[in-house]
């Protein structure tokens, strides 16, 4: 057991922190591109850094502290992971790593209404993160013959991209395909699930940064805001609410790190348990923590110009995408029941 950041984790997180701090509003993406950070998760043999999920996590958490919400997860992290795990014909990976070929990834959560039969794509990829700016879409879907993946040119005839600005400032897109030719490759049986789990962990890692920033902001507000002639943080009812937020953020951090580590491991059941626990925690306790921080602030906490606004929205994005708190509770419940049956038979978890 070693919970200290490795040198590599610290270095990448520090670089991201610097970029996020120095970037103008809306300018973080360009700074990340010029700092060469788009290739973080692409394989080393295509010019990426080949980072694992756990190694990447502190950098995503650092991003969650920032003012800006660059579309890094949708437009770099997930495509990088996907491209390294499945054959992608006709994909300009060099351009993707360098930032000249903007990409996005459509995962099973997005591809439910997409069909890839007889070499053509039809239907809609739903709410694809980073989809509005992308020129190439990498996708991964559950087909009739098992999971498959591929890359498709979004400038081709028959493609319609409808931008969907999200609450945290990212612009996703619905992408509709009408008989668009594509070459498909077979994907590993666990790849779609793995990608969805990784996507959930990445969003939660960013939400963790937001939660840490929210915790600091609220604590500071309690010490500076005065009512009834004293700092409001001297009132026990607010102290205890603040302790709960402190508390949940620590537990959230534990789950983020453990789920990230599980994504790097070979045990798919363990990974699913950890990721579902993480998402359930995000959608119940962290959502409540964000609400509590707004409540502790009073009126100012409900305004758009105050920093709490974007931090809360970052947590809500992680809460709502890649499986709701309820779908993950259902998955976790089944996994727990299965583990209990194995336990009774003497099979270790």
């Amino acid at each position, binding site marked *: 057991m070693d*919970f200290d950041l490795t040198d590599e984790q610290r270095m990448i997180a520090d670089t991201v922190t610097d970029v996020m701090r120095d970037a103008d509003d809306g300018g973080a993406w360009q700074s990340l591109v010029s700092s060469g950070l788009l290739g973080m998760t692409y394989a080393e043999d295509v010019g990426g850094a080949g980072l694992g999920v756990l190694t990447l996590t502190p950098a995503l958490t650092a991003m969650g502290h920032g003012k800006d919400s660059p579309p890094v997860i949708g437009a770099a992290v997930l495509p990088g992971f996907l491209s390294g795990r499945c054959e992608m014909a006709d994909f300009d990976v060099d351009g993707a790593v360098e930032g000249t070929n903007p990409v996005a990834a459509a995962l099973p959560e997005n591809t439910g209404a997409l069909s890839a039969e007889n070499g053509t794509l039809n239907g809609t990829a739903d709410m694809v993160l980073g989809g509005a700016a992308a020129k190439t879409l990498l996708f991964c879907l559950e087909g009739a013959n098992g999971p498959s993946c591929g890359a498709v040119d979004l400038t081709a005839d028959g493609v319609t991209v409808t931008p969907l600005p999200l609450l945290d400032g990212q612009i996703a897109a619905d992408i509709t395909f009408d008989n668009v030719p594509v070459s498909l490759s077979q994907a590993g049986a666990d790849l779609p699930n793995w990608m969805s789990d990784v996507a959930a962990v990445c969003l939660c890692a960013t939400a963790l940064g937001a939660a840490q920033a929210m915790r600091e902001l609220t604590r500071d507000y309690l010490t500076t805001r005065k009512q009834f002639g004293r700092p409001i943080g001297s009132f026990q009812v607010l102290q205890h609410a603040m302790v709960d937020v402190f508390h949940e953020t*620590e537990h*959230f951090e534990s789950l983020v790190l453990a789920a990230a580590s599980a994504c790097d491991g070979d045990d798919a059941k363990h990974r699913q348990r950890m990721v579902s626990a993480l998402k359930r925690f995000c959608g119940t306790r962290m959502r409540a923590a964000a609400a509590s921080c707004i409540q502790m602030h009073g009126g100012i906490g409900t305004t758009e110009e105050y920093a709490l606004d974007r931090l809360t929205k970052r947590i809500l994005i992680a809460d709502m995408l890649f499986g709701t708190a309820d779908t993950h509770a259902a998955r*976790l419940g089944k996994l727990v029941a299965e583990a209990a049956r194995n336990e009774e038979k003497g099979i270790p978890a």
Partner: protein
Amino acid sequence: MDFSFTAEEERFREEVRAFLAAELPDDIRETHFGFRRHSWEQMFRWHKIVAQKGWVAPYWPVEYGGTGWTPVQQYIFDEEAMMAGAPRLRPFGLKMIGPVIIKYGSDAQKAHFLPRIVSGEDYWCQGFSEPGAGSDLASLKTKAVRAGDVYKVNGQKTWTTTGQPANWMFTLVRTDPDAAKPQQGISLLLLDMTLPGVEVRPIITIDGDHHVNEVWLNDVEVPVAMRVGEENKAWTSAKCLQGNESVGIANVGQNKAELRLLRKLALMQQRGGAPLIDDPVFAAKLADLETDFMALEITNLRMLSSIKPGENAAELSPLLKLRGSEIQQRSNELAMEAAGPRAAVWQKDASDAAILDRYGIHGWLLSRAFTIFGGSSEVMKNIIAKQTLRL
């Protein structure tokens, strides 16, 4: 950053497992897996077996009987012992007064008491709370007036857990009634429960059982040599006593073992013609509990692996007590729901007693105390607000 135990830790785990397989008596193991609570006799017997092995006080300095284990090793021992069905080692001697005697006690106190705590020859209880001094411990009123070589002690202690089998009590008494602040003027005494003037009266708790007592002290003559540390300055040592526990405070091992029992119960019980564990409403509640437990388990390990040699409880420990006790309550609550209407049977030796003993309505009622004793949740939050959040 690495979430796996080291090879050395895994080897240690195997050693612990081998010890438990060989030495944990079958009746004690079966008590746990049969959903029953361990008896006093089983707890004391187990203490002696672990003491024989030399593992009963791992967090003590090696010279007094400690093992030199890292906090993670201590955790592994606790987890393995709980999962094997062993009872918890009672904390009053081992975790509470033992470390205080080591830090503040005289040489004579160390030489006499420490070996007897380890061997299990003495059994301790805590005399802190009073009818008028609970969370506000510093307002305690039990008086100790010095008369030559003894203190004459008069007053009443309460909520004395396991006061009935204990032969010694460590107790806080007021030795200077005129001190400027309530925290000043308090001393820590080691009190022989067989002395004249000590009277133990049972308190029956809401679960119908006898866990706690009132202890009345009428002109009890305690030798001055039984005072630990300086006169009137016990507040610091008392705080050390309360803050001592870091490894076991979240009860991770026990929580893990109880969650497994809960899952076992949910497989056995039926709802709507299928095992309860497959009922979506129950499964969702169980999933939430498992989620909070997983978070606690990892947060606990994060804390343990951050403790440097010689350091004590880290800043996260009150927070772990808080969540650990809530999780214990919730697993008792789900177990009560799992037991179904039979949970309402009060008489434990009626039919189905096995489940009721641990997991009837009794378990839920008993578990109310978990967020009260050892520092109520509200007091824990006050501590975190002040010490960690600086509010």
